[in-house]
C-alpha cells in the first residue's frame, strides 16, 4: 500500500465514496466543506453513484438522511458547529428511530462569538443524543474510522448513527500521508446495506416514529436505545479487529501511550493527542514518568478500559476542548465519574476553545502542575 498526500477532509470523502452510500444529503459549513466538495466531484465523475441531495439546511440534511436510511438506502452526511447545532433536534430523533447513518463532524467552536476554528463544543452538544462518536487523531484515523463507521452503524445489535469527529483545520485541512485501502477491499468490508423493515418494502408496512406515553414504552424504548449504544463498544472492537487484518492498523477503545509506569497521565480526545505524544516523549527522555491516554469512542464511553488503563496512575489530568459554563466540562466530568472511588488525584483543564493552539511547551507546563483550570486564557485579550 502506498500513501497519498491528503487532507483529513479529502480522506473522509474517500472513505465515504468507498463505503458506497446510496444517498448523501449535504449542506456546506466550514470546516466540513472540503469533504462535501470532494465528494460532489466523485459523484460528478461517476466515481460514486450516490444521490447527492443539496438540501437547504443541516436540519433538512439529517431529516433527509433519516428518511433515506429507513427507506433502505445507505446514507452518509457531514457537518460542523452551527450546522450540527441546527440539526441537533433531528440527531436525537435519528438515534431514537435507529437510523444507521454514517457521518463526519469537522469539529468547530459553537457561536458566539462566531468562530470557524476547532474545539469540541459542537460534538459535546449532541453528547446525549444517543449516537456513536469516534474521535480521530489525524487524517489516517479519520479515513479508517469513516471506513468502519457503516459497519458499526448497521450492525443489528447497534442500528444507530455513527459520527467520526475530526478536528477542524488541524485535521480537516492539513495534508498528511494517508494510506487508502483499495476500493474493492472496502466494498467487501462494508458489505450490503440492510435495515429491518425498509420503508420502501411496501408489502410489509410499518409505522415509524409514533408517540409514546409515560405509562408505557417511552422509558423502555429509551432504555433499549441505550443498550444498543453500549453494544456499539463490542461491535467497534470486533470491526476494528477485522479492519486491522485488512490494513495492519490497530484501533482500540482507548490508546495507551507510554503508560508503562506512568505516574502522571494526560487524557484527551482528537488531534491534541499528537502534540501530547511529542511532549511525553521529551519528558520521558528527561526521565519523567508521564503518559497519555487517548479515547477514541467518546460515546459509548469505554469506562472499563479507561479504569484498567489508569490502574497505575497517581495523577490523572483531563484536557477538555469544550466547556460547561457553570458546571464541569464534559470529558472531565465523565472521567471523574469513571474513576470514582479510585485513589488517584484528578485534575481538569479546559483548553483550546475557538481554535487556540496548545503547543508542546503548554503540555509540559500542564504536566508540571500549577496551571489554571482554563488553560491558555490570556489575562489581556487586547494586545498591548
Amino acid at each position: 500500500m502506498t500513501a497519498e498526500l491528503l487532507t483529513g477532509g479529502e480522506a473522509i470523502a474517500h472513505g465515504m465514496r468507498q463505503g458506497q452510500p446510496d444517498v448523501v444529503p449535504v449542506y456546506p459549513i466550514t470546516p466540513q466543506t472540503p469533504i462535501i466538495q470532494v465528494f460532489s466531484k466523485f459523484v460528478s465523475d461517476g466515481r460514486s453513484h450516490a444521490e447527492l441531495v443539496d438540501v437547504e439546511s443541516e436540519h433538512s440534511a439529517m431529516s433527509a438522511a433519516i428518511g433515506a436510511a429507513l427507506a433502505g438506502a445507505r446514507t452518509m452526511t457531514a457537518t460542523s458547529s452551527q450546522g450540527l447545532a441546527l440539526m441537533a433536534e433531528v440527531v436525537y430523533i435519528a438515534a431514537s428511530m435507529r437510523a444507521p447513518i454514517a457521518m463526519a463532524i469537522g469539529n468547530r467552536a459553537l457561536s458566539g462569538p462566531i468562530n470557524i476554528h476547532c474545539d469540541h463544543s459542537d460534538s459535546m452538544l449532541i453528547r446525549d443524543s444517543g449516537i456513536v462518536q469516534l474521535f480521530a487523531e489525524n487524517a489516517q484515523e479519520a479515513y479508517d474510522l469513516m471506513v468502519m463507521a457503516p459497519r458499526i452503524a448497521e450492525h443489528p445489535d447497534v442500528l444507530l448513527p455513527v459520527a467520526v469527529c475530526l478536528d477542524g483545520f488541524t485535521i480537516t485541512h492539513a495534508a498528511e500521508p494517508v494510506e487508502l485501502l483499495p476500493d474493492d477491499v472496502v466494498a467487501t468490508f462494508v458489505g450490503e446495506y440492510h435495515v429491518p423493515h425498509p420503508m420502501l418494502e411496501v408489502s410489509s408496512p410499518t409505522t415509524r416514529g409514533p408517540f409514546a406515553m409515560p405509562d408505557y414504552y417511552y422509558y423502555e424504548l429509551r432504555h433499549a436505545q441505550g443498550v444498543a449504544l453500549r453494544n456499539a463498544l463490542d461491535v467497534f472492537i470486533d470491526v476494528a479487529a477485522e479492519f486491522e487484518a485488512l490494513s495492519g492498523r490497530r484501533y482500540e477503545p482507548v490508546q495507551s501511550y507510554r503508560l508503562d509506569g506512568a505516574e502522571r497521565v494526560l487524557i484527551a480526545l482528537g488531534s491534541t493527542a499528537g502534540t501530547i505524544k511529542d511532549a511525553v516523549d521529551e519528558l520521558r527522555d528527561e526521565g519523567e514518568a508521564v503518559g497519555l491516554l487517548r479515547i477514541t469512542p467518546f460515546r459509548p464511553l469505554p469506562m472499563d478500559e479507561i479504569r484498567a488503563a489508569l490502574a497505575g496512575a497517581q495523577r490523572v489530568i483531563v484536557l477538555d476542548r469544550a466547556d460547561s459554563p457553570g458546571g464541569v466540562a464534559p470529558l472531565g466530568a465523565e472521567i471523574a465519574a469513571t474513576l470514582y472511588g479510585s485513589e488517584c488525584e484528578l485534575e481538569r483543564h479546559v483548553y483550546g476553545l475557538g481554535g487556540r493552539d496548545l503547543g508542546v511547551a503548554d503540555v509540559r507546563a500542564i504536566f508540571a502542575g500549577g496551571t489554571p483550570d482554563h488553560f491558555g486564557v490570556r489575562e489581556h485579550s487586547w494586545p498591548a
Partner: protein
Amino acid sequence: MARLKNLIENEHGVPPLRGGHSLCQGCGIPIVVRTVLSSLPGPAVIVNATGCLEVATTRYPTTAWNVPWLHVAFENTAAVASGIESAQRALRRRHALPEGQEISIVAFAGDGGTYDIGLQALSGALERGHKFLFVCYDNEAYMNTGVQRSGATPFGTRTTTSPPGAESFGKAQRRKDMTAIAVSHHIPYVAQGVASHWDDLSRKVERAAAVQGPSFLNVLTDCPVGWGHEPRTTRTVLDTAVDTHFWPLYEVADGAYTLNYEPEHQLPIEKWLEHQSRFAHLLKPENRGHVEEIQAQVDADWNDLQARCAST
C-alpha cells in the same frame, strides 16, 4: 362516477387509514387522508408532520395505518420525503427494488407544518424537484397544541394566541397565500382543494400523482374544536368556504391556472363567519368594518384569480 366506485373499493378490505384512531368527531382530516390515499394509482409511503393527524393515529404500540408511515418531527416533512425519494431513485438504479413498481411518496402536514415552521424544508424540496406529493391539511391554526394562530389563520380570527379583547378584534394580519408560494416554485402541479369536495380532491390527487416532479395540494379542512362548530356540520361549513369565494378550488398545471368550481351564486362572507364561534366577535356591530374588509379582500382575490385563469 367511476371515481366513487374506486374510492369505495379502495376502502374495502385493508383501507390505508383505518378506524379506531382518536381524531375528534367531525374532524375533516381523515376525510382528506382517505380521499388522497384511495385516489393514488399504486402503493405509497407516507411522511407525516407532527400535529393532530400524527398524534391521533399512532399512539405506540397501536397504529391506524396499513401503509408504510413515518413521522420524524414537525418542520421537516418535506426533507424526510426528499430522503425517501432519493433512496427510491438510488435503489431503483441499482435494481434493488421490484421492477416497474412505482411508489408514491406522500407528505401530510398541517398548516403549521406547511405555512410556518415547515416552509423552509418544503421550499427546498420543491426547488430541488423531488417527485413527491405534499398535502397540506389546512385547518387554519395550530390545533394539536390548543388552537394557536398560524400563518394560515384568517384575518380577524379568534385563536388562543389572538384572542379578541378591548384592544384586539382577533388576528390582525391576513393569512399568507401558501398556494401562490408553491406556484412560485415553478413545480408541475399545484392545487387548492377542500375536504368536502371529495370528487374534485380525488381528481387532483390523480393529476398530482401523474406528474414528474413535486406536486402540492392545499386542502382546507375543518376543526370543530378550534373553529367552534357542530361536528355534524363539517360538510356544510366547508362548502360555505367555497361558496363565499373564501376558498376557491383551482389548479395550476405547468403554470396554467384553471378554476375548477364556480358556485352558482356567491354567498356573502357572513355565511362563512356565522356558524363558527371563532368568528362570533366579528359579527358584533362594532366590527362591521372588519367584516367589510374581509369581503373586500375575498372579492379582490377572486378577481385576481379569475384574471390569472383567463390569461394562462
